[in-house]
């Protein structure tokens, strides 16, 4: 602990904490223009200067750590003069277009200019013509840019795209795309979010609404299991559409929380319907009574609870293969780790110094995990080992080691990994026997993961303290998923590694905990956002319409094992699942009445929906909702011996959506319109005898698909990526993500 004073007020903090952070925690105001909590200090604005006793000149509070006994003064005449001068410099030739600027009303420059009362420009500089750049979803106006460097810092340190850079040219300095003519990145839009002025703006949003007109609705992102905190900004749609509401944009609390492009740009997936369809409603009731519901995990915890109640009351079956796989995986994991839940959180990843990730193309599967890993790599120097059959160009700057294994060999790789990590630990005789019996030669040869690679991995771990193992969706849908999970459980139990299991869909974790799922079987089933004989759909193509996730209130269970609330952004005037439940005799006034009824036995708390916090507020860490309790379970898992590893020969496709696409919801978004196509490397094209733009047809799992083949130069290897987000109700693929297929050309 370090004790010192700020303005005479005695404060204390951890060693190494900056003066600015301590001041903020103690509600002492120090003005800043370029500071961002989640990156290293840009130190470009110098507005946060403070005086410290015994130190000549000013100290930059954003980067100076507190020292024992220091006397800091944050307000004095000379400091004020300095700050006023800085603001005067910022305001030189800043275009006077606040009237139309998107940022007006929420602009740091505007606020600080008023705060320091800069009413006139006393300096002069030759004004120059600066061209507005159009970078796809982002527009950049260099005339408005104040060169605070927040955008470049966040792009490099948090996102990991490293796509923008500062061009230094004195008065002509500006932000430019890095090593490229135009901006080539994943379009997360975080640079838009952090920009304190209106220099970087969303091209779709620009000039359509003002900051003060939009009502902010705190919610959780509905696209992946991170369920990031975001705010839907809503306003009336237009003069012509009377009474119609529309989401104009999504913003986030960028100081602490990061959004990917899907969260930021895919917000208009609401199911717009006009009135209630009584006939379809009655049909749905009859259909449900027939005995089975198949559903996807794109639902809230409350809806899952309603489905479970329907099962209890009517004795129907619930099918959700994806959640069932996940539930089995978690059970197997618990049977060796002794805990019902995994232990790592995104915050733990961010502060890790060694990370091993296996079985996920994480940059597309779950961007929040990727951002957390980027942060760890940049801030903690984390050594990241990325284990996957397909190299990912997006992880190149982040991962230290890439371990390529053969498709289907996940079980063998996991066994090798567990053996490496558990070496020298005292283990039960059974477990030791398992590792002793491993046919290393066979596993290494078949999985293509050599001894040297494992040695390198081990070397990466030397002198690291905080370690994380991340398991992806490939493992969960694997034929030997339970054995993989048991191995992961052992790693969690016996090493310093904390494990994170990335759920494949938004609320897979919640559904797997709440619902008592049945094995998939053929026969009559009602589909809820899934295929079925009678379909309840929020995608707008079913027999009875359901509200979309931005038209519902409820909670999600996130990757951080938190139960976070989401709110209604847009009105919905049709029937909801709770109406069906009420008609079936399961009474509750509102869907959120079920929030407090979520099963306590698996770790939920009995909190009412209205008591849950939806915003970050001033807390630096995620304090939305509440954290699930992990339940202790008995360690009775027995490892089964590693069978022969399956071989995948010929043309192999990997079920993987492109960046920013997750579900039919993201496909619906007008800003993310793109044609879904099969993407493969040049090598793949040669092997499969295809050329760019070919129309192809193939059976992927049980589904016959027609796609256009595109060569993606960023890809390597002989596995092509086959998206699933555009398949509507059939999009919820829950089988193993790799499939050997026979591709046939259908013209070109």
């Amino acid at each position: 602990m370090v004790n010192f004073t700020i303005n005479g007020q005695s404060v204390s903090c951890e060693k190494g904490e900056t003066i600015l952070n301590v001041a903020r925690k103690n509600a002492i105001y120090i003005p800043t223009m370029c500071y961002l909590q989640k990156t290293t200090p840009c130190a470009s604005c110098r507005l946060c200067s403070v005086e410290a006793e015994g130190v000549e000149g000013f100290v930059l509070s954003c980067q100076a750590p507190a020292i024992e006994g220091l006397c800091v003064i944050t307000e004095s005449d000379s400091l004020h003069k300095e700050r006023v001068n800085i603001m005067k410099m910022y305001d030189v030739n800043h275009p006077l277009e606040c009237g139309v600027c998107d940022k007006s009303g929420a602009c740091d420059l505007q606020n600080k200019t008023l705060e320091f009362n800069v009413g006139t420009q006393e300096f002069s500089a030759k004004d120059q013509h600066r061209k507005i750049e159009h970078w796809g979803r982002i527009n950049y106006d260099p005339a408005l840019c104040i060169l605070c460097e927040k955008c470049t810092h966040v792009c490099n340190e948090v996102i990991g795209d490293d796509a923008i850079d500062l061009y230094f040219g004195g008065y002509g300095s500006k932000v430019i795309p890095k090593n490229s003519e135009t901006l080539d990145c994943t379009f997360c839009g975080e640079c838009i979010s952090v920009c304190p002025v209106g220099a970087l703006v969303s091209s779709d949003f620009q000039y359509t609404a003002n900051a003060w007109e939009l009502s902010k609705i705190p919610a959780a992102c509905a696209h992946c299991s991170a369920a990031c905190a975001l705010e839907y900004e809503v306003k009336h749609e237009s003069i012509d559409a009377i009474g119609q509401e529309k989401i104009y944009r999504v913003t986030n609390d960028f100081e602490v929380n990061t959004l990917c492009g899907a969260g930021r740009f895919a917000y208009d997936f609401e199911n717009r319907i006009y009135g209630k369809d009584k006939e379809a409603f009655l049909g749905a009731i009859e259909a449900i009574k027939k005995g089975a519901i198949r559903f996807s995990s794109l639902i809230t915890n409350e809806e899952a609870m309603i489905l479970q109640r329907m099962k209890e009351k009517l004795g129907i079956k619930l099918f959700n293969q994806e959640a069932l796989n996940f539930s089995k995986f978690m059970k197997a994991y618990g049977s060796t780790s002794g805990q019902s839940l995994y232990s790592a959180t995104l915050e733990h990843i961010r502060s890790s110094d060694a990370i091993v990730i296996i079985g996920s193309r994480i940059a597309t599967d779950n961007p929040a995990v990727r951002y957390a890993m980027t942060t760890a790599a940049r801030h903690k120097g984390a050594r990241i080992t990325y284990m996957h059959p397909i190299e990912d160009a997006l992880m190149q700057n982040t991962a230290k080691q890439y371990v390529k294994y053969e498709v289907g060999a996940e079980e063998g790789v996991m066994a090798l990994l567990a053996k490496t990590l558990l070496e020298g630990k005292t283990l039960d005789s059974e477990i030791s026997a398992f590792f002793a019996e491993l046919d290393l030669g066979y596993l290494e040869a078949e999985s293509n993961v050599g001894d040297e690679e494992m040695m390198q991995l081990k070397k990466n771990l030397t002198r690291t303290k905080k370690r994380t193992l991340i398991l992806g969706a490939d493992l969960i849908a694997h034929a030997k998923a339970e054995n993989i999970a048991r191995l992961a459980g052992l790693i969690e139990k016996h090493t310093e590694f904390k494990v994170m299991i990335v759920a494949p869909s938004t609320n897979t974790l919640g559904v797997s905990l709440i619902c008592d799922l049945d094995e998939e079987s053929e026969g009559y089933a009602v589909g809820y956002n899934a295929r079925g004989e009678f379909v309840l759909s929020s995608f707008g193509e079913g027999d009875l319409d359901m509200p979309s996730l931005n038209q519902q209130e409820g909670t999600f269970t996130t990757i951080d094992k938190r139960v976070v609330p989401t709110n209604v952004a847009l009105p919905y005037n049709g029937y909801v699942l709770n109406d069906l439940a009420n008609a079936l005799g399961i009474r509750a006034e509102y869907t959120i009445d079920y929030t407090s009824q979520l099963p306590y036995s698996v770790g939920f708390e009995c909190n009412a929906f209205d008591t849950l916090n939806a915003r970050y507020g001033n807390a630096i860490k995620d304090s939305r909702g509440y954290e699930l309790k992990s339940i202790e379970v008995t360690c009775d898992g027995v490892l089964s011996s590693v069978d022969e590893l399956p071989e995948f020969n010929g043309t192999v496709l990997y079920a993987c959506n492109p960046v920013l696409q997750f579900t039919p919801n993201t496909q619906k978004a007008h800003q993310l319109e793109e044609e879904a196509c099969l993407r493969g490397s040049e090598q793949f094209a040669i092997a499969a005898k295809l050329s760019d733009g070919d129309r192809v047809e193939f059976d992927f799992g049980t589904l016959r698909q027609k796609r256009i083949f595109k060569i993606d130069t960023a890809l390597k290897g002989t596995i092509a990526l086959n998206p699933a987000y555009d398949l509507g109700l059939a999009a919820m693929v829950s089988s193993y993500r790799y499939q050997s297929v026979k591709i046939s050309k259908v013209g070109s």
Partner: protein
Amino acid sequence: MRKLPSLQDFKDRNVAEGSSYYNIDGEAYPETGWAQFKQVVTRTFRLELFVGLWVVLREMFKFNIHTVQYPAEKLPIGPRYRAVHEMQRLWESGTERCIGCGLCEKICISDCIRMDTKIDENSRKAVTEYTINLGRCIFCGYCAEVCPELAIVHGGRYENVSEQRAHYIGFEDMLTPLDMAISGKVAEYPGFGAVTPHEDERVKVTPLAY
């Protein structure tokens, strides 16, 4: 300490004593029935009605009529009168002054202004639709006061008669006709929402020496 007046003090106002109230001269009210009868008879037979009519007749034949021939003829309205809005154009170019900042929409206390904006092909903000619901407007003048571009002003059109309210909310009706603006027929607007005279003298000029 001064004693605060109570509610009763306000009720017991004695107008007679030492106040500035005084009775105007007038005939005393007739109190008896006979007196009332006498008043009616006198008023009826003195033909007081024709005293007034005589004035009208006399002026009619003098052909010196001061009556304004409304609606053919209208009295000029003071420039600071707040009637139906007008949207101004720039003098030189005829460009619409409105930049779509949305301040009028925000400040409007009866919530009757609404605008739709977008980015145009020149990367400028363009107003695609603008309406004022005059059925709700209370003509308070806040919109004209807040407008940073002197675009929306209160004009002098005070006649609000139509079969439909919808007739009052069109942007084009309020917009100064383009030919008038370009030909310079529109004088700088002196009315409500315009800058006060001698505003130039108060402007601080940015130094241009470099």
